[in-house]
């Protein structure tokens, strides 16, 4: 009498790459919180998702390199597989409208090139340190950059782990003081995507251990960009002339031709 589950695999006919932002108070969402919110938004928006096979089929979504809980981001990426043909801009509008405000879909591009994740070679982080004067931050940063190794400890799932922050820092700088404003140092750091990842928290821990920089209030951190390193095309100027490309450029171009 027990019927067998009629769970068939719903294969994708198209894939889309999505750039989205995590803004304001929603930066306190964990990646799991975002995943649940997205899956529900896709259902509310009626996006014809493709599903994996198995007893508990999952919608076809792959996430890349999510920003840690507590950090805002203007450059998060994911890829979805859909079971029916869709229009990229229509998808962008529908998913954006269905997501809670603060999770904002910035761009949707049809995926037609391989190895997307490999293009997310580095992130550019903006780290605001309220009540820290710019020159103090600059001194601490100079000290950190002068070392060749800056190990910090981090709690991971299976205990403590030491990671070296220094080699992952590709470039970094401090914005100059704005006269008449309350002190708030703004650091910009380009960090290579490595495993285990080096996060903004690790950089702050390194500034503390190397240079004794202890911000009086928690930093406000935003990931501004992610992309391939050193691609001149559509690149953006960052500290010390460092170049970071747009990871969606290849798909966008492929779609237009």
């Amino acid at each position, binding site marked *: *009498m*027990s*019927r067998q*589950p*009629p*769970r068939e695999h719903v294969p994708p006919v198209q894939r889309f790459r999505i750039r989205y932002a995590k803004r304001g*108070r*929603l930066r*306190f*969402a*964990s990646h*799991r*919180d975002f995943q*649940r*919110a997205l*899956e*529900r*938004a*896709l*259902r*509310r928006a009626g996006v014809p998702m493709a*599903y994996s096979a198995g*007893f*508990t*089929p999952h*919608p076809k979504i792959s996430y890349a390199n999510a920003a840690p*809980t*507590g950090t805002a981001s203007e450059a998060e990426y994911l890829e979805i597989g859909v079971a029916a043909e869709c229009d990229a801009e229509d998808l962008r509008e529908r998913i954006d409208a*269905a997501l*809670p*405000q*603060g999770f904002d879909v910035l761009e949707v591009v049809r995926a037609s090139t391989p190895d997307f994740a490999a293009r997310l070679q580095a992130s550019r982080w903006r780290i605001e340190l309220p009540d820290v004067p710019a020159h103090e931050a600059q001194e601490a940063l100079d000290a950190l950059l002068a070392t060749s190794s800056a190990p910090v400890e981090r709690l991971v799932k299976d205990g403590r782990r030491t990671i070296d922050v220094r080699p992952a820092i590709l470039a970094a700088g401090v914005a100059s003081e704005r006269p008449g404003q309350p002190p708030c140092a703004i650091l910009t750091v380009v960090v290579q995507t490595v495993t285990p990842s080096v996060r903004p928290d690790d950089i702050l821990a390194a500034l503390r251990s190397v240079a004794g920089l202890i911000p009086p*209030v*928690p*930093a406000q951190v935003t990931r501004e960009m992610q992309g391939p390193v050193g691609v001149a095309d559509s690149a953006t100027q960052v500290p010390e002339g460092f170049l970071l490309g747009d990871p969606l450029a290849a798909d966008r171009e492929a779609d237009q031709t």
Partner: protein
Amino acid sequence: MTVDIASASVFPRLERLLPLVQKPIQYVGGEVNAVRVDWDAAEVRWVLMYPDAYEVGAPNQGVQILYEVLNEQDGVLCERTYAVWPDLEALMREHDVPQFTVDSHRPVGAFDVLGVSFSTELGYTNLLTALDLGRIPLLAADRGDDHPLVIAGGHAAFNPEPIADFLDAAVLGDGEEAVLRITDILRGWKAEGCPGGRAESLRRLAAAGVAYVPAFYDVEYLPDGRIRRVVPLRDDIPWRVAKHTLMDLDEWPYPKAPLVPLAETVHERMSVEIFRGCTRGCRFCQAGMITRPVRERSRSGVESMVARGLQATGYEEVGLLSLSSADHSQIAELTTSLADCYEGSQTSLSLPSTRVDAFNVDLANELSRNGRRSGLTFAPEGGSERMRKVINKQVTEEDLIRTVATAYAAGWRQVKLYFMCGLPTETDEDVLQIARLAREVIRVGREASGRRDIRCTVSIGGFVPKPHTPFQWAGQLDHETTDRRLAALRDAIRADREYGKAIGLRYHDGKPGTIEGLLSRGDRRVGRVILEAWRRGARFDGWSEHFDFGRWGQAANDALADEPVDLDWYTTRERHHAEVLPWDHLDSGLDREWLWEDWQDALDEGGVEDCRWTPCFDCGVCDQLGTHIQVAAPGSGA
């Protein structure tokens, strides 16, 4: 006026603390379907609190329903607040951030009414934390015209006496119409320029019979500590306050757009309430007694709520909610039509039902058509035949064994059995019978399924006598004896070589039940114990990692030192017929004499049938409330 500053969002200050606490997302709001109403345009402003962590409180149906009902009204605003964990509490004290709403992060002290929904008495200390953080005086007597009215609701409010000193009012029964009547009264009073201040607003609520206002009643005690009587202090206040009963659920299809939290919660699904009330008459069950009579939502009403709710939330699972969902008169048609409708989609359905019969297994089979058959739960509640007669759970051993055999044969691998320990007249032997029953379940299950990998989990809750039930007079079993009986049961199961490994046992120690008992059947003197325990750090008492029995015991000793009563007096003492119970002036619709007779029948091991299908037993609910049992007509589902 300083209103603008007092009601301004505290988010900028809170935001600096959030990176320092666990799971900050629970404090930021931003749920899908949350409502924003203009603060300045609102005439009556409510804040609703569920006095537990956000992960437990956010999915609460009662709060979600009232939130929507209130926000739908013109000129009414409603926001929500939840208990903050001790890590944030400490930071809020240090940085002077008040208790806030998650909707617009306004201080709770800026609202007109703070409505608190108590599902369990173990949330009382969390109310005190919220008041204190909210800069609202803990004692109602100390509050002024600028403070919100603090009004309790929910099941625990059927005996609000232990928290009477902290409350301005309590609402008994269904909240939908009650909150609207409160709103109307306050709106009128405010429009008149708040004549007579706070006391007059409360007098109006009490005189209209909408809410119980403890301050308008005096409790007199006998020299031995029992209550002599409870008397209204004014002529225009009723001697007894009655509960609210919503009659037509189809007219109240709430929540229409359930909240979808960003944070992970204990219920990652949408719920649709398919009926309210229960007529099975299990004597230990306060929920069943105080929510009488049964009022069903029609089949079409349920179906449209499911469809609309899924569209509004994007949830993948729908729970058909009630106290005993298999008892809906059209449940078979309902589950079949819903299962047909969502077959092949990714949507799954669940039915909280623990009824011990084959029909329940059929329903579960239907709902798991295209999913996994992992576990089924049955609740015989009492381990021995005799015990089940005492509690009026009309399940024979044969029923149980036949039912689980059907379940295992249908492919279910895991059966969970729910029992209670500490029931009136219980002996060691009654509890040990649970081990025998579980063995029998495995033995028959292996036969029926032809497999050896089936499992049975025995889950045991400690019985706490509750107000407005036939067991309200019973002596509670002391926690030492509870623990001893459970240990003996554990040993009996472990000692069984043949079946023991297939049986899991889950239970908690008896101490929290003793404090729950104190808070459940306490009177106004218990308020001092709560305050003392809270001052000593009691928080989140429903969480074993926060509950501290020693702290409560000390608080009870100190706070009751000058009284002829103590913790035992409130818990293990059996009450007599003539004793005035602290909640006798609160009318749940049940006739006191009927409850007493049912208590006597229990001691004689007599049963009472379900009154929905068999002749009525005159429990009093239908007469007194002018209500009648509503069982959906067969055609109404079309």
